[in-house]
């Protein structure tokens, strides 16, 4: 099977499609009245926004979430296919365009993130599948003159009287039937696909070079653009000198836009080469001399600031310290990080007189559509988003400022524009995981019960900037002033009333503490920040799980036992801690190898990890990682494993190498030589144990990231006696 985003756009009236002039209510998932942007070579039968049956027996699934490697196409095809009784490998799976039916039920907008996709669609898409199968059975009963109870289905076929009929045989009759709703869902015991599938549906396209990403998009008459942005975040353009640029080979235009100066040429290579000759003057900002040392020093000072908000304040902290058997007090540092997806950001925009198209891979096609509309004035309904495979997302493709850039350049130049970021642009002009510092003071009593947990965190907040970028992307006609105003208000709230949950998530929730307080000071240094795989948990699990280890050592309690004792009210996490702890005790270690333990729940999934570490020539080597998780029912256990493996390696890259630092207000790192990624030779063996569960599935894209850094740091302490409280982990001496 070949997966491909088709390019033609057709509108089909849902009411006409379901037939009988029936008006279908909005309340039914996938059946709103808005015309569907169904893309098809032959209309066939489109019973809802997600499925299309053609006369030549193809079944097309319009996948509402974006495939960025997490396996969502395979996963959601499995979910809908289970009830439809069609194997995910029998369907053609395509990325959908923008439509209200494709909103993420967990978010209310058409966006992919927060490890929500399987959880949020698990029941709604099964219902769509079940209702559609019921409709086809009803049509088959009519056409075959049989009772519905005499019919069975198996992988896109109706079975009757010893014969097998493809679903496509019945679509003419199905077209004229009333839609079916509220069909009972299968019981888990009858599942054929959920819990079984191993192979990914997109693998063939991806191993033959046939999968299309934004980078691969082309349109007649397009030119390539590169954009020179301010090296200091947010600095305004003063002037530019393109005298050495205009005569370079292939260059057709140099234009300034809101975010920099674009060089437009007949190829990316020509544009990039020419851009090096561009001279640009930028206005100084209040952050033009910022260094990482100054930034860290200001965050550290804020630990003692009363200018703070409270996430939780329960019990009596002082009392908690009074009868302590042991106490700890340590501050943990987590740096800015770039996402560095393998595909640098890009977008191809074609603007017509009153219509437009954009080709790209993005975590919110709706945001792309709205931003093209906002910049160009073209109505959203005339803008087609061709959402392609994402060459990695990790949160970075939740931000769409490159769409604004490409649209502005296309308006200035008058031809379709393919804007391409370099890796240097990606590392130096992007959006980042916030840096933070957090101080933990905690106490444990003689029974291993934690009696005080006092955390103060200081750093940037994600949400105000996200609101500023996202509001115009959700409401394209919202005036900029208003969007900025709302963003400022949100920032004010987080600075004065209640912390941004993205900043403090994961600092205390996994455990039940009788006396607990968590406070936050918001410090903005003008560095754009956004969601980075597992968001605040990526910083805060390092804080909390390092502190737990320190507390166990201070009190001479087994670190697994300490966690077990303090998670009795959190049975699912408690269970994965117990399983991983038992396995840890059985592990046989080569000479010089040491184990570290960490556990963390995020995105509704609970994870415990054990890292086996040695120190070789002063370098931290991670040999093995055991990962035990409970994510509810695993729709595709093999994809769950790949997400655990990938998240661990992603988190390990951050733990061992990840750091974006600042000098003179600029990012120091520029490419993979100084923003290093884990390589194959450094990748550990990873064993994943998925706890058997019958509860609805929970997130898997992110939850394996948070525990790995503290698991490794805790192992390093056992190997060296050094307690490393800064990320990335660097041995002293």
């Amino acid at each position, binding site marked *: 099977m070949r997966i491909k985003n088709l390019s033609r756009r057709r509108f089909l009236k849902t009411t006409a499609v379901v037939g009988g002039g029936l008006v279908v209510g909005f309340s039914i998932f996938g059946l709103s009245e808005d015309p569907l942007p169904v893309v098809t070579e032959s209309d066939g039968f489109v019973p809802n926004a997600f499925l299309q049956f053609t006369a030549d027996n193809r079944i097309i699934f319009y996948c509402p979430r974006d*495939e*960025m*490697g*997490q396996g969502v196409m395979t996963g959601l095809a499995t979910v809908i296919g289970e009830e439809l009784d069609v194997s995910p490998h029998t369907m053609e799976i395509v990325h959908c365009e923008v439509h209200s039916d494709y909103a993420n039920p967990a978010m209310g907008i058409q966006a992919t993130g927060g490890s929500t996709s399987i959880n949020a669609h698990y029941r709604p898409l099964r219902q769509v599948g079940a209702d559609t199968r019921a409709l086809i059975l009803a049509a088959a009963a009519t056409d075959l003159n049989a009772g519905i109870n005499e019919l069975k289905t198996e992988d896109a076929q109706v079975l009757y009287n010893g014969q097998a009929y493809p679903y496509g045989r019945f679509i003419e009759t199905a077209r004229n039937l009333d839609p079916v709703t509220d069909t009972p869902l299968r019981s888990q015991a009858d599942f054929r696909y959920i819990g079984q599938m*191993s*192979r*990914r549906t*997109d*693998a*063939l*396209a*991806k*191993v*033959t*070079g*046939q*999968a*299309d*990403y934004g*980078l*691969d998009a082309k349109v007649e008459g397009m030119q390539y653009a590169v954009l020179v942005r301010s090296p200091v975040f947010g600095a305004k353009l003063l002037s530019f000198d393109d005298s050495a640029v205009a005569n370079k*080979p292939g260059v057709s235009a140099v234009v300034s836009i809101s975010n920099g100066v674009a060089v437009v040429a007949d*190829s*990316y*290579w*020509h544009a*990039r080469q020419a851009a090096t000759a561009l001279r640009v003057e930028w206005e100084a900002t209040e952050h033009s001399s910022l260094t990482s040392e100054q930034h860290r020093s200001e965050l550290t000072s804020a630990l003692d600031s009363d200018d703070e908000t409270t996430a939780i304040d329960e019990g009596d902290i002082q009392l908690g310290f009074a009868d302590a058997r042991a106490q700890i007090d340590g501050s943990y540092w987590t740096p800015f990080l770039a996402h*560095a*997806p*393998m*595909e*640098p950001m890009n977008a191809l925009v074609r603007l017509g007189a009153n219509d437009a198209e954009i080709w790209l891979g993005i975590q919110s096609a709706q945001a792309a559509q709205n931003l093209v509309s906002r910049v160009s004035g073209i109505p959203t309904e005339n803008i087609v988003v061709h959402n392609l*495979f*994402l*060459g*990695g997302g*990790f949160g970075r493709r939740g931000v769409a400022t490159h769409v604004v850039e490409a649209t502005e350049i296309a308006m200035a130049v008058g031809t379709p524009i393919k804007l391409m970021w*370099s*890796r*240097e642009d990606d590392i130096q002009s992007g959006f980042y995981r916030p840096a933070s510092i957090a101080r933990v003071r905690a106490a444990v009593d003689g029974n291993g019960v934690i009696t005080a947990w006092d955390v103060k965190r200081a750093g940037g907040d994600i949400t105000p900037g996200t609101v500023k970028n996202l509001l115009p992307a959700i409401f394209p006609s919202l005036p900029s002033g208003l969007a900025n105003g709302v963003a400022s208000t949100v920032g004010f709230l987080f600075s004065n009333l209640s912390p941004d949950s993205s900043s403090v998530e994961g600092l205390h929730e996994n455990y039940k503490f009788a006396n607990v307080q968590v406070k936050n000071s918001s410090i903005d240094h003008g560095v754009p920040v956004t969601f980075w795989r597992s968001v605040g948990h990526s910083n805060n699990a390092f804080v909390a799980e390092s502190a737990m280890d320190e507390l166990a050592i201070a009190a001479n309690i087994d670190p697994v036992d300490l966690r077990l004792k303090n998670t009795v009210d959190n049975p699912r996490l408690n269970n994965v801690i117990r399983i991983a702890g038992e396995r840890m005790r059985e592990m046989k270690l080569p000479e010089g190898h040491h184990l570290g333990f960490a556990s963390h729940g995020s995105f509704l999934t609970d994870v415990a990890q054990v890292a086996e570490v040695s120190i070789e020539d002063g370098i931290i080597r991670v040999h093995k990682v055991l990962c035990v998780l409970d994510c509810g029912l695993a729709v595709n256990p*093999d*994809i769950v494993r*790949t997400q655990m*493996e*990938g*998240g*661990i*390696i*992603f988190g390990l890259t951050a733990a061992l190498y990840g750091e974006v630092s600042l000098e003179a207000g600029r990012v120091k790192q520029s*490419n*993979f*030589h100084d923003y290093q*990624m*884990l*390589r*194959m*030779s450094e*990748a550990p*063996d*990873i064993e994943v144990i998925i706890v058997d569960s019958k509860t609805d599935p929970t997130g898997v894209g992110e939850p394996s990231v948070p525990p790995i850094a503290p698991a490794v740091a805790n192992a390093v302490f056992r190997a060296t006696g050094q307690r490393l409280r800064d990320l990335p982990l660097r041995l002293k001496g």
Partner: protein
Amino acid sequence: MIEFSLNGENVQTDIDPNTPLLWAVRDSFGLTGSKFGCGAGLCGACTMHVDGLAQRTCILPLSAVAGKRVTTIEALGSADNLHPLQQAWIDYSVPQCGYCQSGQLMSAAALLEQNPEPSLAQIDQAMSGNICRCGTYPRIKQAIMAAALSYDATTKEGA
């Protein structure tokens, strides 16, 4: 005018000979399976074979392949006739986002051409220039080992 062999076909182009091979192949010949990741030979997403050896084509000028044999992912195998590595990649569910996998496969294929029975250390060594941000390394390693077992000398490039 530069002439070379591209996936078994003699081709010629008059674009700037300093253009990196990656862009020439993608833009002039429309083969987009090879990807751009760093522009500095650091990540391997652009890997092709030049006379059978894995090369980082984002920094390899077109002029360097004059008269040589260039092979891209598009000619490693096809849906109907997969290279053993491509089949192993599917069997072990290697690709996640998939963006780096053309380069991973081309590096692995060059390795098996040179050394049909690589050790784990030799695999690590040969694949160390290819970054995967999704973290598919453990499965790439498994897939290479599996493909090596089934590797048939007759699948050799150009044979």
